[in-house]
């Protein structure tokens, strides 16, 4: 007897972590070797971001349920968000190297291959986590 209410939605084979982890790792390893302002770096981010954007807008990926509305306790998220926004905004408006923005602070770190690859990997997984929502 069919019991649709008990049927768990199963991810497609290609959408499972066992498949996505090596795919994202491969993209990250290539991306880590692509220097800033290069054609390869731009094309890789545009292509991978474009595919993930398209997947997120389509119904190809099973989405996890979200609460119907947020409780007042969600205001706790404003604490890190506001601190980040104020620091980033102030350093951006200041515009000096003495008080650098996050991207200027991150630049020397992201020049290293493994740091850049790790950042790529994190960016891809975070994008995937958003698609699932």
């Amino acid at each position, binding site marked *: 007897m069919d019991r649709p209410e008990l049927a768990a939605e199963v991810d497609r084979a290609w959408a499972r972590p066992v498949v996505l982890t090596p795919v994202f790792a491969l993209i990250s390893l290539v991306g880590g070797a692509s220097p800033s302002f290069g054609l390869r770096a731009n094309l*890789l981010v545009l292509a991978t971001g474009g595919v993930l954007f398209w997947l997120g807008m389509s119904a190809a990926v099973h989405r996890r349920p979200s*609460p119907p509305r*947020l409780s007042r306790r969600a205001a706790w998220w404003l604490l890190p968000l506001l601190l980040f926004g104020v620091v980033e905004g102030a350093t951006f408006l200041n515009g000096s190297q003495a008080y650098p923005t996050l*991207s200027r602070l991150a630049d020397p770190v992201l020049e290293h291959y493994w740091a850049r690859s790790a950042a790529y990997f994190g*960016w891809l997984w975070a994008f995937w986590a958003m698609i699932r929502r």
Partner: protein
Amino acid sequence: MSAGQLLVGVLFTTSLGLFAAVEIASRREGSRVPSLGDVCGVVMRYRVGPLPVGRIAMFGFWWWLGWHFLAR
């Protein structure tokens, strides 16, 4: 590294630490603080008519962030 750069670095690190702390608090049993994923899920459900503005904005922002840090 100058004192200014150190100060900014500490403030950004504090902000990231607070993100982690709120996420950990949200995952405790019986917590009424929603997780970051739940917050994103609610934001991404926002629509203007048939247009999923929340999803487009979140994906667009994340796409731009990757391009900004990893290609520029």
